[in-house]
């Protein structure tokens, strides 16, 4: 892991009444890393993010942000962090620039530097054109940018971004992704998402949690490989479906056969063997193979596999 840890989380727990939202999570994020934080809804991502941002304290466990203890030195931690909450909240009646001016003062940026700092984030987030508009009158995409702008303001070394692309249209998602990619190396970015393509495109490392526990940690490629042991082909055959399924299931090396859109998805241990064996079995019965292609499980399925099956140690 490169550099000193920017975030260090040890056995983090958070309970809301009887519900344990985070049940003992530990991880480290090195300075300058871009790390994705994955998990299904309700996994404890947002709760973890909120704790790291200083919104509420953990029930148990140790959290260090930029070397400071979160509970004992909350203000030092918050100074090091820019937080972008899911569903970026704002004062709808304030103008963009007025709002960012307020944030600059809240972040204790020196008075003389405030105007410059606000101007920089306005430009960086493409908000120059709407600087004097009321936030409530902005489109969702622009509001998300305002959210990112307030997180970037004051150049905090660590950015915590909770689902930064949620609710954006595809063009805006690409823009947001470029904005984040532009921060590579400059800042530590820890962002949660359930859009796996985004994580694969941006992150060097992924941390996956489910049901409040860490289930995997590693590079996106590495995670895909780890669960990609099974090979899979998609097959279309011009035979009676029930019989075809039966015949395919009887082929040696085939583990599962599942009907898919006008065809079958066949899983087995070895790709080349699987295709040949299946092809021959179809031919023997006098049917014709209309289509046969290989499929590698994407991060999407890796993720689903992890979340369903539980912990896979890194």
């Amino acid at each position, binding site marked *: 892991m490169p550099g000193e840890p920017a975030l260090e989380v040890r056995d983090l727990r958070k309970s809301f009444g009887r519900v344990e939202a985070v049940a003992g999570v530990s991880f480290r994020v090195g300075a300058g890393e871009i790390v994705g934080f994955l998990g299904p809804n309700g996994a404890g991502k947002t709760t973890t993010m909120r704790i790291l*941002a200083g919104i*509420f304290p953990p029930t148990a466990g140790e959290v260090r942000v930029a070397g400071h203890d979160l509970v004992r030195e909350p203000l030092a931690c918050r100074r090091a962090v820019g937080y972008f909450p899911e569903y970026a*909240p704002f*004062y709808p*009646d304030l103008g963009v620039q007025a709002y960012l001016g307020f944030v600059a003062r*809240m972040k204790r940026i020196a008075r003389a530097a405030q105007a410059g700092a606000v101007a920089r984030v306005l430009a960086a987030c493409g908000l120059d054109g709407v600087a004097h508009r009321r936030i409530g009158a902005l489109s969702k995409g622009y509001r998300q940018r305002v959210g990112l702008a307030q997180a970037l303001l004051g150049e905090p070394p660590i950015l915590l971004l909770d689902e930064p692309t949620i609710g954006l249209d595809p063009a805006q998602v690409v823009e947001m992704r470029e904005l984040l990619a532009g921060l590579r190396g400059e800042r530590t970015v820890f962002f949660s998402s359930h859009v796996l393509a985004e994580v694969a495109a941006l992150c060097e490392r992924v941390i996956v949690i489910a049901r409040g526990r860490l289930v995997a940690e590693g590079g996106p490629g590495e995670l895909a490989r780890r669960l990609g042991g099974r090979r899979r082909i998609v097959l279309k055959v011009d035979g009676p479906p029930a019989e075809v399924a039966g015949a395919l299931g009887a082929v040696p090396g085939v583990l599962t056969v599942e009907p898919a859109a006008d065809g079958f998805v066949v899983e087995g241990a070895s790709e080349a063997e699987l295709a040949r064996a299946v092809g021959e079995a179809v031919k023997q019965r006098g049917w014709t193979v209309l289509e046969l292609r290989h499929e590698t499980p994407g991060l999407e399925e890796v993720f689903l596999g992890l979340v369903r099956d539980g912990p896979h140690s890194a």
Partner: protein
Amino acid sequence: MTVVAVARKELALYFGSLFFYALAAVFLVLAGYRFYTNLGFFVLMGGTDVARGLWQYQLLDVQGLLLVLVPLLTMRLFAEERKLGTLELLWTYPVRDVEVVVGKFLACVAVVVLLVAATAVHPVILTRFYPVPPGPLVAGYGGLVLLGAAFVGCGLFVSALTESQLVAAAATYGILFFFWMVTWNEAALSEGSLRLLLPLSLFDRFYPFARGAIDTRDVAYLVLFTLACLAFTLFALDTRRWRGLR
């Protein structure tokens, strides 16, 4: 200064909302109407003591109007931020809770002071026709500001407990009306409970001010009441936070 930053933001939100202007208009029109009728009464009854005959009635009327006005000003202070989710964002900045609480309190008090000060136009008009000794008025207006600040403290505390502005306003009315009515029907209370409740009445503390007298005990009571409300507010915010409530 983050306190100033919070206060500035709150003032910008007040002065940027139509609701505030509607509220201010209703307050000032009603205060003006009461001045008109009180003056009529004073003239008709051939009053000689302007402090007791006119200002006492007028200041008590303005006090009643403040009772109606302030909960509508304070209801949004924390409830709205909680509903919008902006409160959470505030906690991610390097500010202490106390700075946020004091900033909001000062902004709302400033608004109340502004509105109360605007009613000073009545005595100013009167000076053109009738001698108006300023002393009792200064006491009366000072009392209104102290009482207004106490109302704001109470409303701020209640607003920190909920994310519904309506609930915040209703509960603030409930508390303030309780403090008002607590001594209304003294005959219905036993002597013991009266002795216990009488000092609690926020409004009994205002009577001496309305008559033009400043008693340090009344000042101390109103200031302590306000400070206690601010402390409760901090406590409420902290408790909700530890419990992880939004």
